[in-house]
């Protein structure tokens, strides 16, 4: 306990039969002009004696209670509004000119944060009320247990601000990133740049304060809309208030030092499908390209609810176990080596033709032809809809599994990818993270996965998709693995309850009135709801396991370039021609490569061959990229024949037209 301070009391606890003080709530009044407001932290100290008189009140002498203001009332001694009308003779101007102002009261309701002594738990005594100091805030929020321990685990999240006081508020890494509790959920209306900014600031804070004894940490951020996360390595604009807040929080205002960007190609297979295509920056973006192997592992993502049956599963397992990357005889005299979508489609055509020739139209190796057609359609569908992410026959390019770097951010930009492709990317990346973390082979000990738009991926209603099941799995098991979900959404009430329920830390930005009217917010007072509905950008309400009540904090703007500003400062480059794009990618690998040499090499060559050669070069990263590119590209005749022999994957028929 701290000694009574010299600061004057700002209020006094009152209790009546109708408004009694309880162990968890109390009322107090203040002067009409006061710094107290909703969310203010106050301290009731019965040891403070005011004008030299002994402290009096119910409860034990010496009891100290910390509370947070949850509601406020003001009223005068006016018996009925009609009397005010009578007094002013119906003229509002006259009411304002009355010689005496009516007596008014500012009556506040505070929820108890902490009592000392904690046992026996008793009603709040009728003591004097003080504004909390820095030390009081830390004590009220029980932060001293992780702020001043032998191995501190405190992560600055923002400043509690009230009446000129700016006290840092910390989260406990053990409860934010595991293993005690984990995950963070942030909700708020769109368009205020609060959710993304808050996560960016918090990531920066985590990277600077993640305790050494907890190991290495990285973050994987899915950029699902616009340029939000495309400029995390670029410094943003801060004002003096921001810098002061950074200083107060002890966080260095700097952009992320290590950011790796991944984005799929556009349909042309050479231009990156991202807004980070400014010539000065595009060199940092790695293509995200997956082949059949990568997709087949997550085929379930591609199947809609009606598709999920044992037969389809069995056939996909058959393809994975018996066909993929093996010499395989189709039973009609053909031998196939399936390594790509094109190879797989060749196999399917061979089987269907064989069945037709043999007059056996219904099954092949116990698999019904309808099941086979369905699986073929789904797999073909992804290569068509996500062309650029999924390569028909090129080499994959993936995140650095097993070589994640400490304090690095991996941004996977899927903003412009087909929703099905987004699901696939999300499912595969998270599954691989889990796989590697389970065997401690990722390169870091903990990974924060930031997913925006949880309303889309983990909606409370709607079908149980693979992505949703995976998010549930992370939410429930992730903290043991070091896989931490930072989810953001607009409507928390519409998120699967097990996803938000497992989030140890809940953050609220400005909320929609309709959202606040849902049952999940019934525990909040009307005043707190109104404050939430009008929160300015940069202010949040935080719930954390150590805090017995939600706390409002203000955080500085993240020190990174906001997506919108980034696009203005680094306007995306227009798509370049196929040849120019190939040149740029090769020059990125070796600046000595002369563009005209590359242009001559690829002239009259099939784009598929060029893409394949480029992918091989990119993956190998040899000392002489041009030589490897030339070698893989091969002779023009052979490559051209091979390319022409391959037919494009036919488009899907709609699900409704299927005969099953």
């Amino acid at each position, binding site marked *: 306990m701290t000694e009574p301070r010299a600061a004057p009391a700002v209020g006094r606890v009152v209790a009546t039969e109708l408004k009694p003080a309880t162990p968890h709530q109390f009322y107090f009044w203040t002067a009409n002009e006061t710094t107290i407001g909703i969310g203010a932290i106050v301290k009731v100290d019965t040891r403070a004696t005011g004008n030299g008189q002994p402290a009096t009140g119910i409860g034990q002498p010496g009891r100290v209670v910390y509370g947070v203001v949850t509601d406020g009332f003001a009223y005068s*001694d*006016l*018996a*009925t509004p009609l*009397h*005010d009308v*009578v*007094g*002013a*003779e119906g003229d509002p101007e*006259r*009411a304002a000119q*009355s*010689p*005496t*102002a*009516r*007596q008014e009261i500012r009556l506040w309701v505070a929820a108890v944060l902490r009592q000392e002594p904690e046992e026996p738990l008793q009603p709040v005594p009728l003591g004097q009320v003080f504004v909390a100091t820095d030390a009081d805030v830390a004590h009220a929020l029980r932060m001293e247990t992780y702020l001043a321990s032998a191995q501190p685990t405190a992560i600055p999240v923002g400043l509690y601000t009230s009446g000129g006081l700016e006290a840092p508020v910390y989260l406990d890494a053990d409860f934010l990133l595991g293993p005690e509790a984990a995950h963070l959920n942030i909700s708020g209306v769109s368009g205020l740049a609060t959710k993304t900014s808050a996560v960016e600031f918090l990531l920066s804070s985590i990277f600077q304060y993640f305790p050494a004894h907890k190991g290495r940490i990285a973050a994987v951020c899915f950029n699902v809309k616009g340029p939000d996360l495309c400029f995390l390595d670029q410094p943003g604009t801060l004002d003096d208030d921001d810098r002061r807040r950074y200083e107060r929080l002890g966080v260095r205002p700097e952009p992320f030092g290590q950011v790796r960007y991944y984005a799929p190609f556009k349909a042309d297979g050479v231009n990156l499908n991202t807004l980070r295509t400014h010539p000065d920056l595009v060199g940092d973006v790695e293509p995200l390209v997956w082949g059949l192997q990568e997709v087949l592992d997550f085929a379930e993502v591609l199947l809609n609810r009606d598709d999920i049956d044992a037969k389809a599963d069995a056939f996909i397992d058959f393809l994975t176990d018996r066909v993929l990357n093996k010499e395989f005889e189709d039973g009609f005299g053909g031998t196939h080596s399936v390594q790509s979508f094109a190879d797989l489609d060749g196999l399917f055509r061979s089987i269907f033709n064989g069945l037709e020739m043999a007059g056996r139209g219904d099954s092949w190796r116990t698999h019904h032809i309808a099941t086979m057609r369905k699986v073929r359609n789904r797999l073909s569908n992804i290569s068509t809809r996500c062309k650029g992410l999924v390569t028909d026959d090129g080499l994959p390019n993936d995140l650095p599994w097993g070589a994640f770097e400490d304090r690095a951010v991996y941004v996977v930009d899927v903003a412009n990818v087909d929703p099905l492709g987004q699901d696939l990317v999300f499912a595969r990346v998270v599954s691989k993270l889990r796989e590697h973390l389970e065997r401690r082979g990722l390169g870091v000990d903990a990974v924060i996965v930031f997913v925006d738009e949880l309303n889309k991926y983990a909606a409370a209603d709607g079908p149980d998709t693979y992505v949703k099941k995976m998010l549930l799995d992370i939410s429930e098991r992730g903290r043991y693995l070091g896989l931490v979900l930072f989810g953001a959404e607009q409507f928390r009430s519409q998120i699967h309850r097990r996803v938000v329920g497992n989030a140890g830390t809940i953050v609220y930005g400005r909320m929609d009135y309709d959202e606040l009217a849902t049952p999940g917010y019934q525990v909040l007072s009307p005043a707190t709801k109104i404050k939430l509905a009008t929160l300015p950008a940069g202010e949040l309400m935080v719930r954390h396991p150590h805090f017995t009540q939600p706390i409002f904090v203000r955080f500085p703007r993240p020190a990174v370039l906001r997506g919108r500003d980034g696009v203005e400062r680094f306007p995306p480059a227009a798509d370049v021609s196929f040849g120019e794009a190939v040149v740029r990618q090769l020059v990125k690998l070796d600046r000595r490569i002369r563009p005209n040499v590359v242009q001559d090499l690829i002239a009259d060559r099939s784009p598929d061959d060029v893409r394949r050669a480029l992918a091989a070069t990119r993956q190998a990263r040899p000392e002489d990229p041009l030589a490897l590119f030339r070698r893989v590209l091969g002779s023009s005749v052979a490559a051209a024949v091979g390319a022409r022999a391959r037919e494009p994957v036919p488009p899907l028929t709609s699900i409704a037209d299927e005969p099953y």
Partner: protein
Amino acid sequence: MARWNDAIIAAGAVPASHVPEESLGRADLTEIADAELVEDRELGVYPVDPTGVAPSTVSFLDGIQRWQVAYYDGVVPIVRGYVAAAVRRRTDRRLRTVREATRHFHAAARTALRPGVLAALEESGVELVDIPDVAAAQPGRALEAARRVVEGARVAIEKDAGERYVATLPADEWLVLDGLLSESALLARHPRTLAVVKSHAAQYFEGDALTRALTIPALTRTGVFRPRGRARHEVYSWYLRLWPWEGNDLLFGLVRVEARADQATVAAASAVSGWLVRERAPVSTPDARWDRLLYPIHDVENYLKARAPRDSLPLRTSRFPRAS
């Protein structure tokens, strides 16, 4: 407190907790008095000056009295009395207390008390005020005498607070008090003091003049007159109607103003009345006397009530015998 309380009981007094209803307020003194017209030869009626405004800084004085029967020594009631007065100064439309006085005392007929009880009372450390000329009898007379003692104490503490305050009253400030200005020579002759009298038990006119005085329309005043009779010190006075009385009661919204007995008072009566009319807002509801009770006076009264000892209030709980 418990120790001397025990001592009084040990000496033979029986504890009691009777709070007479009349302990909460003062009683009107019924009186047929006389008045001398000052402003005109026949009592005139004048409209208030609508341009009259309140001085920028005005203080308001009021007092309260509380008493209850705390013990009985045989059939002799021993009364615990409490009186208080406060001056609250108004600046920027807000009232703040600048002077406050309180007095606790016991009141009893000393001669009727048994020696042990008297000794215990005297040793209690609380002032003991004698109620003279009351022999041991039915308690009604003693209680009426006690009420007079308490009221006298209240008037005295109000007077003292007012006199002390006006002694330092700045040149541009006024003092308005609830009650009679004529109780104090110092207050009665001060150029910037006013008294607003809400009770009209004293009758100063008769015949047409009485009718005119008590039926003046809203926002008018009577001519200034000099009250005679009980007034100890000379003051000027006039009636002022704050609210229309038609449809209510004859005395509804009617106050009597007292001010220094000086020609300047006559000259300023309409402007001062205009000022007092402005004091109608805010109305002092829920007090039943809101039609005559100025809000600042109501505020002083509320302040004093809030600070009064809780045990001086009438019991709102059952008077069933206690289980113990």
